[in-house]
């Protein structure tokens, strides 16, 4: 066996990322940064803040206290306040905890109640299992927030819940409940019964959405103008959240005519808050319409549009990148998902990396944005998570280099200032 020259290996290892175990300062106490503990100051080579003003800070200092970010800036401009404990992570990078808006692995996988075709009242909350193995892998990969949603066995699977992935009680994990209404616009829900086609699905969707919206408007009127209280209909309560902007419609939609129907019915006709979830195959052909209607695109888990799938894509045999096609059509709000367990939760960053392989432009850290601030904004929780900004939850990932290079390792993960993963105590990935 010939193992190649150590020199060559070293160079490649170095270009791939920082050497493990090199450059850590003395470890601060376990409580530093967490609620009730002393403040924590982290010095790193590069902070991908994803703050609009200054998305990347070289040689950065990050100040954390009571579970929240206090300040982020160049180490030369910021002082370490008295009482703060310092962690110098050397050549490593820091980025916000990643956000996956399409997750089915936060619980028992009991995510489809398929007795009826449309089920806006069902909630996956009941099946959440904190600290399960899939969530532990998510944490080890730097995915700190997930939208746990029902499956696509029916046109309307029910309500999703936005959760932190780190071990905690359900109440402590919960970011927002309900956070989303899951819509499945085509394909999968057709398996509900013989004779189901897209025409029926679309009727079902339009009918239920209109009834729900009318219900929410009756309550809105009542709360504004008083009068007789409307009848309470639990299956339509989610529409009050949607109308108030506290929840979103997560639309499982893919292929052009289906994405078009989502945009037409849910957004253009009914004005509901919705995002494209999947958006795959040739769904990108509706990207300009989505842009005009300000409907975000959370893409995946398939990152390519293959010519072999018989989806009417006519080209020369090359593979089209889904994210690249949306981007090239000017779509400004592109994020990535895993649909875990379709793609393992821990491979969220790889979805973005493969997007670049197929032509997605990453010159302005669009991959990192699509893993953090874009999904946070899409879920309506960007005041709490998605970037390294003062006041936000201290959900922070320390890693050996650019997150879109899979050879880089996640080395530390903080959620709300709590150290929840430390690779030095045993790498899980």
């Amino acid at each position, binding site marked *: *066996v*010939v*193992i*190649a*020259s150590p*020199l*060559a*290996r*070293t*160079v*490649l*290892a*170095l*270009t*791939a*990322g*920082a050497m493990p175990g090199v450059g850590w300062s003395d470890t601060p106490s376990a409580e530093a940064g967490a609620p009730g503990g002393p403040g924590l100051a982290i010095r790193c*080579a*590069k902070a991908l803040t994803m703050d609009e003003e200054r998305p990347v800070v*070289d040689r950065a200092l990050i100040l954390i206290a009571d579970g929240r970010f206090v300040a982020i800036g160049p180490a030369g401009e910021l002082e370490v306040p008295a009482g703060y404990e310092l962690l110098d992570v050397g*050549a490593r990078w820091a980025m916000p905890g990643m956000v996956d808006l399409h997750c089915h692995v936060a619980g028992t996988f009991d995510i489809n109640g398929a007795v009826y075709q449309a089920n806006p009242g069902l909630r996956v909350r009941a099946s959440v299992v904190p600290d399960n*193995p899939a969530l*532990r*892998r998510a944490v080890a990969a730097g995915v700190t927030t997930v939208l746990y949603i029902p499956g696509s066995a029916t046109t309307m699977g029910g309500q999703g819940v936005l959760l932190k992935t780190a071990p905690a009680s359900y109440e402590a994990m919960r970011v927002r409940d309900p956070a989303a209404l899951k819509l499945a616009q085509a394909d999968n829900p057709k398996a509900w019964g013989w004779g189901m086609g897209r025409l029926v699905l679309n009727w079902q969707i339009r009918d239920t959405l209109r009834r729900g919206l009318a219900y929410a408007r009756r309550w809105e009127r009542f709360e504004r103008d008083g009068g007789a209280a409307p009848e309470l209909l639990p299956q339509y309560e989610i529409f009050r959240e949607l109308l108030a902007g506290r929840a979103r419609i997560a639309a499982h939609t893919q292929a052009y005519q289906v994405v078009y129907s989502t945009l037409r019915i849910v957004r253009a006709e009914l004005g509901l808050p919705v995002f494209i979830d999947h958006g795959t195959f040739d769904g990108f052909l509706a990207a300009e319409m989505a842009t005009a209607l300000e409907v975000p695109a959370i893409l995946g888990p398939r990152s390519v549009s293959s*010519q*072999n799938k018989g989806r009417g894509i006519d080209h020369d*045999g*090359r*593979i089209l990148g889904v994210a690249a096609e949306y981007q090239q059509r000017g779509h400004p709000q592109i994020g990535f998902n895993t649909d875990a367990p379709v793609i393992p939760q*821990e491979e969220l960053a*790889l979805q973005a*990396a*493969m997007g*670049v*392989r*197929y*032509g997605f432009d*990453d010159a302005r850290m669009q991959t990192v944005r699509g893993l953090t601030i874009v999904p946070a904004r899409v879920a309506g929780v960007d005041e709490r998570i998605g970037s390294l900004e003062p006041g936000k939850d201290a959900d922070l990932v320390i890693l*050996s*280099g*650019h997150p*879109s*290079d*899979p*050879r*880089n*390792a996640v080395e530390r993960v903080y959620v709300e200032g709590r150290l929840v993963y430390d690779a030095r105590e*045993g*790498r*899980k*990935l």
Partner: protein
Amino acid sequence: MERISAPLLALAALASACASTAGRASSEPSAVEPSTYVPRPLAAGESGIAVRGAKLLTMDAEGRVFDPGMVVVRAGRIEYAGAPVELPPEFPVRDVPGGWIWPGMVDLHSHVHSGGSFGDLNDMVVPTNPELRSRPTVRPSNPEVRVACAAGVTTLFGIPGSGTSMSGFGVLYKTKTDADYEDVVLRDPGGLKVAQNFNPQRGGGDLGASWAGLGWLLEKLGDEAAEGAREGREDPSLENLMSVFRGELPVLIHCASAEGVADTVRMWKGRWNTNCVVSHGSWDGYLAGPYAARMGVPVNHGPRTMNLLAMRREDRVVGTAAEYVDAGVPLFSLNTDAPVMPQEELFLQASMSARLGADPYAMLEAVTTNPARSFMIGDRVGSLEPGKDGDVVVSTGDPLDPRTHVELVLIDGQVQYSRERDGQWF
């Protein structure tokens, strides 16, 4: 010839501190001993091409890296690989500023030769088929092969499936994009395909319902062929199999799990001393890694390079490529089992193995020189050295980084993919 200069090391260290792309794009020319190689002009009718880039990974036995580098190909074969030299006027040259030059990748476990994904792979009338060959099913330059080429995978071992214990002999071929069979074949038969356990288990009520039956079927036939090979027996149905037992052809063995890998090594190396390569070796197969290492049996791992089941036991995902390498198996390589994993994601098998703890350079060897050497084609492909086939890839960066784009693919010195000409595929 200089390997890697100290300033480059420092630069690489700096690169990790500031930007992941800086190290590869802006390396300074290192001090290189003047080369004695002076390329002569192309003779009339002679083909040739040179490629020049910022970094050359030769993947040769010394692991030499040139920074910058150049490869000169004449009449389909590599004439020179090293620091850039002066070229005669009119010599065709492709300059890729910032480009990385590396050998075309080799995948020893591929089923896309017949086109249409799994195509025509398994004859399952009888459990052992030493007479069968993939050759009649090869469709050169089919769409999946063209995609593989554009990704820099230039040599494939196109093999029958694992529907029977011994499914026949595969073809080693190149992924040229517009060629006929004679133009693409590297060796036919390229080697034997055996399936030691799992898939070939038979439910028809005859022998082979369990691993015990499968083992007996292989052992009986193998002993017969081994004896035939020793005695120089003439037997058309065992002709190719006897060449495996004479050590003239390698054998790739589908197996998985610790006991499957151990059984494979014991039988094909311990009993018959063939040039055998364990393929897959998945699940907890890595637990038999030390035994394979002791017996000197190479492992061609994948398409899954991790053991998720271990998460339940150890609370971590075990990177199985790292486990095999650490166990010391010789010539460790990776595969896609395409179309199980798309052929074009061979590089990703390496990246993800590195993510789970394997050394990145060892993983680069695992998709280039190691598979070639373990399958007795190391004299032709797998590294960039004078005399070898002109299978050269130029990319915008590190081959294991998914954000890297392929610029140029040469096979036998012919341009088979060019980003400039064909548009960006990867």
